[in-house]
């Protein structure tokens, strides 16, 4: 087990390394960070000085090595947006804001939204899918199919706007947007927007994998033992059907983390997604790099968790060394 985690961690580190290398290469293509950082007013001399202090004058490979070692130290440099007013203060306090804390500060908002969305999706989609699978071809089944397909056919930001107009403005049931004081009411609409797609995909997967399971001989055997339909579905089928469901959940959780980019912008939710968008719009490279890094790590951790859940769900996959 420990060895498995170790092995997976090494794989993940390699993946992270590749991603960050790509980010490095990509990042060098977008122009001179120094003059971007300094804006229109700076003099040539100031630009040169900043380039030197950012290490941009060094040969590329040296920059690359420096970039990676800085990552290892958790140092992604300073934001060009936050604390921008301070970049050029001479003297020892001449620091902008380190970006990693800026990103990490946003993490709870994004994570809570993502998990809430997934929770919502599971709570809605699993029963839907199961009931559809119990009566294939029935009206319920067709309704579930259409509804779940509708869930994956929506433009996210459009849905968000519509939900605001309906539930916040017209009906006045929920706040339009914002983080509130972290109150649940504020999270419902964004989480719902975010959950639409996972609900759809999950319901379909649950339905088809449950249908698969229900047609397997062991279900017939359990029925022959005298088990009730509910027991067949929730007692026997669900655990086996859960393997594809888990895979897809991990997948969706990762997607939800990025779907948050759009949703957070619409709802003014202070997560990493909104941060990425503003960082992109002002080309705040260090902030972008750190955000990608943090999201990548989150996704990798999620995938690892999903893999570990196999062990519990699928006795055939043994994780012994």
């Amino acid at each position, binding site marked *: 087990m420990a060895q498995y985690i170790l092995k997976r961690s090494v794989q993940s580190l390699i993946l992270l390394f590749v991603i960050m290398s790509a980010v490095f290469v990509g990042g060098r293509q977008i122009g001179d960070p120094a003059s971007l950082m300094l804006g229109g007013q700076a003099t040539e001399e100031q630009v040169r000085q900043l380039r030197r202090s950012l290490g941009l004058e060094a040969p590329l490979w040296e920059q690359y090595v420096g970039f990676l070692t800085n990552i290892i130290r958790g140092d992604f440099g300073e934001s060009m947006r936050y604390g921008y007013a301070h970049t050029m203060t001479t003297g020892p306090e001449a620091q902008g804001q380190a970006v990693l804390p800026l990103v990490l500060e946003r993490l709870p908002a994004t994570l809570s939204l993502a998990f809430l969305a997934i929770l919502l999706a599971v709570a809605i989609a699993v029963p839907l899918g199961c009931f559809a699978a119990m009566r294939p071809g029935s009206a319920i089944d067709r309704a579930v199919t259409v509804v779940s397909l509708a869930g994956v056919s929506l433009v996210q930001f459009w849905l968000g706007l519509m939900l605001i107009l309906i539930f916040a403005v017209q009906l006045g049931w929920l706040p339009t947007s914002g983080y509130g004081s972290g109150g649940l009411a504020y999270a419902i609409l964004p989480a719902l927007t975010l959950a639409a797609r996972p609900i759809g995909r999950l319901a379909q997967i649950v339905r088809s994998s449950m249908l698969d399971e229900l*047609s397997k001989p062991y279900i017939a055997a359990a029925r022959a033992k005298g088990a009730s339909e509910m027991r067949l579905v929730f007692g026997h089928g669900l655990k086996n059907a859960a393997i594809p469901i888990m895979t897809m959940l991990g997948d969706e959780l990762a997607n939800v983390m990025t779907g948050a980019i759009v949703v957070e912008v619409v709802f003014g939710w202070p997560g990493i997604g909104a941060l990425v968008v503003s960082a992109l719009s002002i080309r705040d490279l260090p902030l972008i790099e750190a955000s990608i890094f943090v999201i990548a790590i989150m996704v990798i951790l999620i995938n690892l968790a999903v893999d570990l859940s196999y062990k519990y769900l699928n006795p055939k996959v043994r994780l012994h060394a």
Partner: protein
Amino acid sequence: MPGADPQENGHDTAAPSGEERLERVRASHFVAALVRDPITLISLSWLVLVVVTGLGAAFFAPYDAADQDIARRLLPPLTHNPDGGFHLLGTDQNGRDVLSMLLFGGRVSVTVALLGTLASGLLGVTIGLLAGYYGGRFDAVVMRIVDGMMSIPSLLLALFVLFIIGGGFLNVVLVFALLRWMIYARIARAQALSYRESAFVDAAHAIGAPTPRILVRHLLPNMASPLLVLATLEVSYLILTEASLSFLGFGIQRPLSSWGLMITQGRDYIGEAWWLVTIPGLIIFFTALGLNLLSSWARTMADPAQRWRWMKNKPSSRTADSAGTATRSTS
């Protein structure tokens, strides 16, 4: 044993009557299924409509979509403009005819998605096919890459790449190809892997068929239907993704238009001109839903066990438990 067997081979008389009839059912049952399944029929009709009007946008559109006239901006649907022209779906913030924009924008949205699907599909299928068939180191490396890329959320990756190379039609297609090939590669590989072991491929080897022939003539046709089902899904996904990218400013750029761009730009007028956001949003929704329904239907039809369910008009709600309550006939 009586000398004369009734038939030398059973095929001639007994089986064919049944079989031949079976055949006739099969040939027509897709059509029949379609006709009997209104939802899918409507989806299909809608998609045909979208594609036809999109391709023939220049012919169908009542106005030139690029034709602006700020004096007649934000006219609601079903109104006439001062010159007497009629706007079925109203005009936008720059006085362009929304219907015409939808047609031209639809062409762009659908083409981007189709090209993206085609490009990623070709790339992915080729790689997946080779990996699955040859296996070994190549396969291992490819699958590592696929796993790696799959675990990077695609929208983020798309944003980053477009951030570097800039938005626009071709770049978006390029990004789609780069981002989605793994999906096809996975399926193609799995399929190739299973067919590689199958007896008919062995048989093809046994008659001396060279590998390229086996890949193209034997494997590919058999992989077609799951890949097509997937591609249909992907088209809908890419239409939606394009909309999200446009929303974030990295999608299609003016003067081209796309449905996503229309919502994106129209959303600032949501209070005064609901139609600018609602209509393209619904159009995307229906198109994506249509594609999804079609793909779901195709998948169902490809699975003989499920096929009949969709064809029945009267779904029964009985479960296995109540099977016993079926009618009891007296003889």
